[in-house]
C-alpha cells in the first residue's frame, strides 16, 4: 500500500525496517537516540530498539567511525550518522585509512558493511560547515561506495539496500529536500542501488544531477519545455561506482551534456563524468560537456548561498551555451 511520505520519514521507516530485518544493525551517532537526530531521521528508534542498538555516542566523529570498524569486524552492521556534512572531516582519517582499506588489507577476511549517513548540501540558510558537498573526497577513495538519494522512494529503499550491502557506503541525504514529499510503496520491488535513472525523457540536451540538484534539474527541464527545448534528466543516484551506460545512450541521442552539482566544479564529480562521456560519446557530441556547480570558494555565509548554489537559471544558462555550440 503506497503512502505519501517526506524523504526524512521515508529514511526513518527504511531504517526501522532494516533494524527489524537484521538484529546486527546498530545505529550510532550524536543525538540520534533520545532526541531522534537533529533532523529527526532516527525519531522513535531508540525507544523501540533500545540503547544497545541506537547508540547516543559521545561527541566525536572519529570515535563513531573508529568504533564502527571494530563492531563491523565483530559481525555487526553499523549505520553511522554524521550530523552535518562539514563535520565528517574529524572522521575522515578512519573512513579513508581504515573503513575503505580493511577489506583489501585483509584480502577479504574482514567485512566492512558500514553505512555512513551524511545530510549534505546547502540551501537551508545555515552557519559554516553545515552546507557542504564532500562527495568527491569519498568517490576518489578506493574501497568506498557513494550514493545520493533524491526521492522518498529511493530514500526508503536505498537505506535498506545500503545497510544490507557488504561494502562500506557513504549515503548522502539531500538535507534541504528532507521535507519534500513523494509516494513510497513499501511492497514495490526496489531498483538496484547502484544504478542511474532517467527521470525525465527529452531529446535536446542531457542534464545529469544527483541528490538535491535533481529537483533543480527537473524544474529547469520544465521551464525549458515552455521554450520548446526538450531536456532529458538523469538522476545519477550512484556516484561511486558511476552507472553511466544510460547516460551514454542519452548523450548519443542528444549530442549534448550538462552536469549539475552543488560541489565546487574543479575536480568534482562533473569533471570525471565529462571525461568519461567525452571518451565514450566522442563522435556523438555536438558540444563539450559543460559543468554547473559551486565555485572554488569556501561555502559562503547564508546570505550569499543563492549566489553560490546552482539554480534553475544557471542550469538553463548552461543548456543555452551547450545548444549554442
Amino acid at each position, binding site marked *: 500500500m503506497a503512502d505519501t511520505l517526506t524523504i526524512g520519514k521515508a529514511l526513518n521507516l527504511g531504517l526501522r525496517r532494516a533494524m527489524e530485518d537484521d538484529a546486527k544493525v546498530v545505529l550510532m551517532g550524536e543525538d540520534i537516540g533520545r532526541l531522534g537526530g537533529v533532523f529527526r531521521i532516527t525519531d522513535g528508534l531508540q525507544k523501540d530498539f533500545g540503547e544497545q542498538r541506537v547508540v547516543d555516542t*559521545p561527541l*566525536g566523529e572519529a570515535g563513531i567511525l573508529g568504533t564502527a570498524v*571494530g*563492531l563491523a569486524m565483530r559481525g555487526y552492521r553499523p549505520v553511522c550518522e554524521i550530523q552535518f556534512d562539514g563535520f565528517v572531516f574529524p572522521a575522515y582519517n578512519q573512513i579513508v585509512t*581504515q573503513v575503505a582499506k580493511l577489506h*583489501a588489507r*585483509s*584480502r577479504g577476511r*574482514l567485512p566492512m558493511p558500514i553505512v555512513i549517513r551524511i545530510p549534505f548540501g546547502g540551501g537551508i540558510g545555515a552557519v559554516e560547515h553545515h552546507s557542504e558537498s564532500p562527495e568527491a573526497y569519498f568517490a576518489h577513495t578506493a574501497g568506498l561506495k557513494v550514493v545520493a538519494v533524491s526521492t522518498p522512494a529511493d530514500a526508503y529503499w536505498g537505506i535498506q539496500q545500503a545497510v544490507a550491502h557488504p561494502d562500506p557506503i557513504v549515503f548522502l541525504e539531500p538535507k534541504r529536500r528532507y521535507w519534500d514529499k513523494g509516494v513510497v510503496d513499501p511492497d514495490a520491488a526496489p531498483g538496484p542501488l547502484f544504478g542511474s535513472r532517467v527521470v525525465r525523457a527529452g531529446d535536446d540536451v542531457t542534464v545529469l544531477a544527483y541528490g538535491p540538484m535533481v529537483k533543480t534539474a527537473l524544474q529547469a527541464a520544465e521551464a525549458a519545455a515552455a521554450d520548446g527545448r526538450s531536456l532529458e534528466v538523469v538522476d545519477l543516484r550512484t556516484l561511486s561506482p558511476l552507472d553511466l551506460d544510460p547516460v551514454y545512450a542519452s548523450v548519443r541521442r542528444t549530442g549534448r551534456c550538462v552536469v549539475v552539482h552543488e560541489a565546487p566544479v574543479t575536480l568534482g564529480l562533473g569533471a570525471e563524468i565529462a571525461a568519461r562521456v567525452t571518451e565514450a560519446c566522442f563522435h556523438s557530441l555536438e558540444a563539450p560537456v559543460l559543468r554547473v556547480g559551486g565555485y572554488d570558494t569556501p561555502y559562503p555565509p547564508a546570505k550569499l548561498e543563492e549566489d553560490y548554489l546552482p539554480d534553475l537559471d544557471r542550469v538553463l544558462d548552461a543548456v543555452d551555451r551547450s545548444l549554442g555550440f
Partner: protein
Amino acid sequence: MSVLSQTTEMVDPVPGAGAPHLPAQPDLVQLLTPEGERVEHPDYSLDISPEELRALYRDLVLVRRWDLEATALQRQGELGLWASLLGQEAAQIGAGRALQAQDMAFPTYREHGVAWTRDVDPLHVMSMFRGIDQGGWDPVATGFNLYTVVIGAQTLHATGYAMGMQRDGADAATLAFLGDGATSQGEVNEAMIWAATFAAPVVFFCQNNQYAISAPIERQSRVPLFQRASGFGFPGVRVDGNDVLAVLAVTRAALAAAREGSGPTFIEAFTYRMGAHTTSDDPTRYRLASELEEWKLRDPIARLKAHLSRTGVADHDFFDAVDAEGDELAVRIRTGTREMPEPTGTEIFDHVYAETTPELAQQRAEFVAYHASFEEA
C-alpha cells in the same frame, strides 16, 4: 603533589639530548628486579610454575632471534623495512601471554612478540615487510588484528570490537596496543572516552619506549602516561615493561576485570626501544649512547635468565636448547622469506570490495589485456 613536581621524574638530565632519567619509581609494578630477583607486590601476585617460566624465557629468546634475523634480512635487501622490537620483548610476551583464546589483540606495527603468542606464522608478518601483502594472517581466526600503521587508529577498533563482545555477552576482552607517541593522537583519546562511557571490555596497553621516532616522552606528556587514565575515569597502572612477570600479572588482572564488566584499564609498560624506530631510522641523531648502555642493564631476557639460573628452574642445557631452537627458527624465517613467491599484478584489484564494481572489473580486464599485449608481441 603538583603537576610540576610529578613531571620532575621525567626531566631530561642532559638538556636537548632527550635521555630519560631513571630515578626510583614508587609507582612501578615490578615482580622481577633487573638483577633477576623475585619480589612481591601488594596488588599483583603471580602464581607461576617452572614450566611456565621456562616457556616465557623461550618466547623471549625466540622473538628476539626472529627480530634480529629480520633486521639482518632488511640489511640484505630481502625486506623493504623492519620495525624492530628489540628491548620490548618482555612487554609484548607478557601482554600476549595474558590473552585468552577468545580475546582479540589490536597491534600497532611492532607487536611481533604478541603475534608470536597468537601463533601467527612469522612468515605472515615477514611477507608484509617484504611488500608481498599487507599481512598474511587471518585476524579473527588468530585473535590478532592486522597491523595498523596509522598511529592510534586501532585503539578505536579495539574499543568497537569490545562493544561488540559486550553486545554478544561474550566472556572476552580486547587488548589495544599503542605507543607513547600515540597518546597524543585525538583518536586514542576518543577511544578512551568511548571505552569509559560504555564500560567496554578493552585494555589499553601502552608500551612507553621513551621515543616517538625522535621525539622524547617529554614532548608528549607533562604527566606520567598512566596517570592520564584517571582523567578518563578508569584505572591506570605503570608496570616495568622489561619484567615479563609483572607485565603478565598486570595485564591478566586488567583483562579479567574487563571480561567481568569492570571496564577498561590503561597499562603503561615502561620500557625502551633498544634499536632504531625502523631500519630507516638513525637514533644516534637524537639520543645518547650512554642512555642505551643504561637500559642494557635492564635487559628483559638477561633478568629472567638470571632468575631461572639462580632458582635452578633452568640450566645450561635448557638455555642451549632454546638457543638452538632460535637458530632453527632463524633459518626457517630466512629461507621462507627469500623463497616467498612474488605476488601477481591482478591481486591489486581482487579484494577492494566484497562486491566488485563494473568500473573496477573493467580496469582489471584492461590491465590483463595490456600485459597480455606484451606477451603476444
